[in-house]
Every structure is written in structure tokens, then in C-alpha cells.
């Protein structure tokens, strides 16, 4: 499990063409570099590892005795509407966001890459404009608006808002992906009598699946971790997502904050993202190297 090189064009090892003296020098610096890397890696991993360890250790975790136990997780599971409920809420919101983002961005990216229609460039520019406007500017009116649409305090409303925040990146990725597919491929299908939707589903989507995975992964991580939007848009305690439920747990246990349960909550929230990232990191890194980054 290691992060792949961000660029496909790997650089040849510098030492290959170097002389013997140089090789020794390189070996010395390499040892220094390895030590530095190791020390830094430990530093970066330590907070999370310590939290994981602390969440199962000590009297509050082990039923009063010193030792190891799952009591912190048990108390976390019983807090408020229950951990399963909050986890389910997070999942629902994240999956709705992923679905919404993929639908809008795939269709929109396809349209932007393959069809000429009035307002196309405007739509593209306005979508990218989402990045320019700070979210607090949007959240106050958004709440008023969702209320009028009957979507206040609902996972669907929240997911739509999160989808909107994802669209600039997603549309950019998907349009680039469709642009990268040779036109002959879908034109042949069109000539064979497939409509644009069937062409998309049968011919193009299989080709752009990697880009869709990247878009979906970004959307999932962002919505799973989002804090302010659910904080403002959800009012019912039993609808809260994990990060907001944890923050609420911290403040509601006023006077006797349950550090152990909080640490357990941090681990429960971090594990799915970490697992997903380790599993799909190649796709994640693609988000950085898709050309979108080069300014």
C-alpha cells in the first residue's frame, strides 16, 4: 500500500550514470534520507495511531480496570440516536451526493464535450464559478431556499447542496475524460443507429469509468467529512452525520466530556475514508494529475 508516483513518466534513478565515489555519497545521503523519511512518517501517523490506541486503553475503555476494552465504543454506540443511525446518515448523504454528482457531471460532461448548444460555455463557466464564492455566502440563502422547497432538514436537500459544491471539479474531470475519447468511437455508434443516451451508456461510459471513480471518490470523501453544511442544514439530532454528531456529543456532555468516546468517534469516522483511500489511491492521485492542476 503505497502512494504511486504522481506522474506516469517515472524518472530514471539519478545514480545510474554516476561514478563509484558518487555512489558511496549517494548511499550515505540515502541512509540519511531514509531516517528522515521514517521519522517524519512516524510523526505524521502518530496522532491517529495514538488516538486508535487510546480509544481502547485505560479504565474508561476496559470497564474500570487498566487494560484494553471496547467500552468507549459501546458508549459512543449508545450516544443520542445511536452510532448506527449516525453512520447510516453519513452513508446516505455521501451515496446520494456521489450519485447526484456522477449523474449531473457525466451527462453534463458528455454534453459539453460532444454537443454544441446555446449556453454551453456559460453553463461551464458558471459551474466553475462555484469555486470562487465562499460557502458561507451561500449557506444562509440556501437554508431559506431549501425551506421553501420543502427540503430543509433532509438528507436529500443536504446531498443536493454537497453535489453542487462537487460539480466544478466533477464537470471538469468528466469533460476532460470525454474529450480524451476518440470521436470515431461514438460516431460509429451513432451511425449504427444508437441514440445519444445509448451511445453514452454502451460505448462511452465503459471508457470513462476511471474518471467516474475519481469523481465519485472525491465526492464521497468530501461529503463524508463535511461539517458546516450539515451543521447548518440539518436541525434534527437524529439526522446528523458523523462529524456533526461528534461535535454535538462533545458539547452535550457539558461538564464531563467523554474523551474516550470522542476518540472512538474519531476512529470510526476516519477508518472508512482511510480504507477507501488506500484501496483507490491511484484514482485519487489521478484527480491531481488529470491536467486540471496545471493551471
Amino acid at each position, binding site marked *: 500500500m503505497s502512494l504511486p508516483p504522481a506522474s506516469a513518466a517515472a524518472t530514471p534513478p539519478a545514480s545510474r550514470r554516476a561514478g563509484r565515489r558518487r555512489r558511496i555519497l549517494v548511499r550515505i545521503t540515502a541512509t540519511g534520507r531514509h531516517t528522515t523519511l521514517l521519522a517524519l512518517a512516524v510523526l505524521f501517523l502518530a496522532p491517529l495511531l495514538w488516538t486508535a490506541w487510546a480509544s481502547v486503553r485505560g479504565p474508561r475503555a476496559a470497564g474500570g480496570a487498566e487494560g484494553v476494552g471496547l467500552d468507549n465504543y459501546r458508549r459512543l454506540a449508545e450516544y443520542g440516536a445511536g452510532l448506527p443511525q449516525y453512520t447510516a446518515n453519513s452513508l446516505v448523504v455521501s451515496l446520494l451526493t456521489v450519485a447526484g454528482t456522477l449523474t449531473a457531471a457525466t451527462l453534463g460532461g458528455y454534453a459539453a464535450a460532444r454537443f454544441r448548444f446555446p449556453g454551453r460555455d456559460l453553463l461551464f463557466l458558471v459551474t466553475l464559478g462555484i469555486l470562487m464564492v465562499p460557502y458561507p455566502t451561500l449557506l444562509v440563502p440556501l437554508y431559506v431556499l431549501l*425551506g*421553501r422547497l420543502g427540503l430543509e432538514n433532509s438528507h436529500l436537500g443536504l446531498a443536493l447542496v454537497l453535489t453542487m459544491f462537487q460539480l466544478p471539479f466533477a464537470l471538469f474531470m468528466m469533460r476532460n475524460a470525454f474529450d480524451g475519447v476518440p470521436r470515431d468511437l461514438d460516431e460509429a455508434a451513432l451511425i449504427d*443507429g444508437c441514440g445519444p*443516451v445509448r451511445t453514452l451508456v454502451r460505448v462511452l461510459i465503459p471508457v470513462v469509468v476511471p474518471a467516474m471513480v475519481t469523481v465519485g471518490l472525491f465526492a464521497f470523501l468530501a461529503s463524508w467529512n463535511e461539517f458546516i453544511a450539515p451543521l*447548518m442544514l440539518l436541525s434534527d*439530532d437524529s439526522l446528523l452525520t458523523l462529524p456533526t454528531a461528534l461535535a*454535538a456529543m462533545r*458539547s452535550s456532555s457539558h*461538564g464531563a*466530556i467523554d474523551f474516550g468516546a470522542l476518540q472512538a468517534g474519531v476512529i470510526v469516522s476516519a477508518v472508512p475514508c482511510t480504507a477507501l483511500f488506500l484501496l483507490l489511491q491511484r484514482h485519487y492521485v489521478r484527480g491531481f494529475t488529470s491536467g486540471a492542476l496545471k493551471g
Partner: protein
Amino acid sequence: MNERGSRRPWRRAAAALAALLATLLVTAATGCGAAPEPADGRPTGHTLTMWTRAATEAQTRRFIDAYNALGRNSVELRVIPNDTYQQQIATAAGGDNLPDILGSDVVYVQKFIEQGLLADITGRIDALDFADALVPAHLEVATAAGARHAVPHALDLSVLFYNRVLYERAGLDPDRPPRSLTEMAEHAARIQRLGGEVSGAYLAGQCQGCLLFTLWPSVWAGGGEVLSPDGTSAHLDAPEMAGVFAAYRGMAEAGVLAEGSRRESGATWITAFQTGNIGVAPMSSTFLGRIEEGERLRIGVAPIPGADGGASTFVGGDVVGITSTSRHPEAAWDFISWTLGEEAQLSVLAANSDVPARTDLADAPRVRANERLRTMSELVPLGRTPRAVEFGATFNDPQGPWLTLAHNAVFGPDLAAALAANDPLVDASLAR
């Protein structure tokens, strides 16, 4: 084939869009037109919505469960995290989504009345047999321009907690808690001399709500006022308030306030006392049920004294009212008035060691049987609830000017300077 292939999705999308628009129109249309309420007789069969903050969820839920079992109306509760309660009310009001029944931290109710969120229920309250017995401090704060908008719902009193074990070890009489802040400082100093992990006293010094909740009663106990009657200015630099600050400041300088006091944000307020290492500390009555006693900790409870004597308490907690946008005010009042009845007060509140919201129930056998509950109930008439429209923004908000003032008044380099620098900001905030 080619033709139809490209048209079909267009038609489908158009149909979906039309359906969406229709839904929006219907949703918008149902927003108006209030259902008629029966003019006489008890309204039944309504579904009411109620919001409460997480802090008072337990009491509220017990009320609702008992009421719903009666089969008259059905109340649905939404519990809102404490941190975002005000914000959720604000956004709900902006979106026209308020519930029928609104529970509110009593200190915010003036703001909600000013914003027009709560209906005038003066007539309804006056019609109650026991109107005079409703906790006066709450009722007064729920009144604006002579009109009453809410009734007491759950009480949270500030009291002095002391550790009887440490009192005994320090050679103090555990049945004689401090009767003035001067005495409190003396007791704390005696206990501090026990050494080791033990500290004389504790204060939540970085928690705006805790500081006002625990310090203001000392001002009232000494006959002073904290706020002007209309709540648009404060007397924080007056001798009474300054005297209270000076008393705690003295304890801090003498080193008898536990080191954690300076940075206590409220998060570990109970935890500190729970260790059994704190001699005496003003805290919340609701903590009683949350602290475990043991060999190192036996709890004594006493009224909060003034600098030189007297006793008072901060009558905090929640009030409840009917929103001005409710379409079922009769049914909502049926629920609210039921919660105030003797049966509900005793079987829901007193039975769970919560202080009743009616002063006439302090003598009820169920209250008298519980010694601590009796002590609390007897404190209620002595207590006060501050009244100001801008209370939340000025005092109960970490970014308001009060926290800076109070923290520096006790822990800062200079008391007079802390008051002089921040008192104008408090007044400006209150007068907004």
C-alpha cells in the same frame, strides 16, 4: 430509430421537470390557510411539533411520552444540538419552518419575543388556577411590554457544591457550608493546605455561561443588580459586581483556585469535582445526578452566598411557548398547560429529582421526601433570571464581550483595567 432515440430522453426529462414544478407549486400552496380550531372544548387529534435543545431532552421526552399516552393530541419532538439551537431557530424562522411548540433556553426568550417568534399567551396563562405559582423569575423574563409569551418548563439552578470529605479532613464543619464569599475563600484556603492534589476551590474560568451562572447570584445575594431593568445596560463595574470578581480574584491570587480553573471551558467542569480533589465550587443543580459519590467525595449542597452574606441562585433552564406561526395554538396550549398541572409536575419532574416549575409544589410530599430536591425547591423563590434582549450575543456567546471581561477580571493582570476596557463593549452589545 435515430429520430426517436434522440427525442425520447427529451420528453422524459420534460415530464420530470413538469412533475417537479407541480410538486413545488403544491408545496408552496399548502403553506397558507390555517385549519380552524374548535372554539370550545378540548382540541384533539392534532399532530404537534415541538423543538427542544439536547440539554433538556430527558425531561421534555418524559412529558411528551406521558401526554401522548393520553390520546388527545400527538406531540412529535425534535431534539436540536445545544450548540446550534439558536441558529436552527433563526434559520427555521427565516424559512417559515418553526414548530408549533418551542422550548427555549430562558435567557434567549426575550430575543425570540423581539423577533416575533412566540405568540402572546397572556390570557391563557392568566386563566390557569395556579398562574401565580409559576416560577416568577422565568415568567418575568418571558414577558415583554406586559404580554407573556412562555411558561417555565425545566429548571437549572446554580448552587454551591462542596466536598464533605475534604471539609472533615481540613477540620471544617461539613454541616456548615460557606455563608459568604469571604468564608468560601477561608474554607478554600484551609482545604488547600491539605496539599497534594487537593485544591481549595474551582471555577469554570473560560466558560461564559458558567461564569455568569455562578457569579451573578453572589451579586444578587448582596442586594446588587447586574443588569438595568430594561436589559439595555449592565452594572459590571459597579461595586457589587466588582466585589464578587475581587473575591474570586483573591482566591486565584492566593493559589486556592485549582490550576485548571483558568482554562476550564466547561468541558471538564464536573470531571474536576468528581475527582474528589476540589473543596468547594459553584456549579449546576443538574450535575447532582451525574456525579458519583465515594470514599473521597461526599457532596454537600448550599445556596450561593454574596460577598458578605445572603443567598441567591440563577434560575436557568428552559421555558416553552407557542410559535406565532403555529396552526394549532389551542392544541399546543393543551399540551403546555397539561405539563404544568400538578400530576405532570410531580410524576414527571419531581419523581425524577427535577425541580418543579411551580413554587406551590415545594411542600408536596413527593418533593419533601427528597432532601436535595427540597433544598433546591426552597431556593427557587430567592433566585433571579436576567432579562435582556441581547443576552445571548452579549453574555452567552464565546465571542461576546462578557467572557473577555469576566475571565480577565478574575485571572487577568488587573481587575480595574479589565472592567474599564470591556464594560463599554458589554453596554454597546446590550443596547444594539
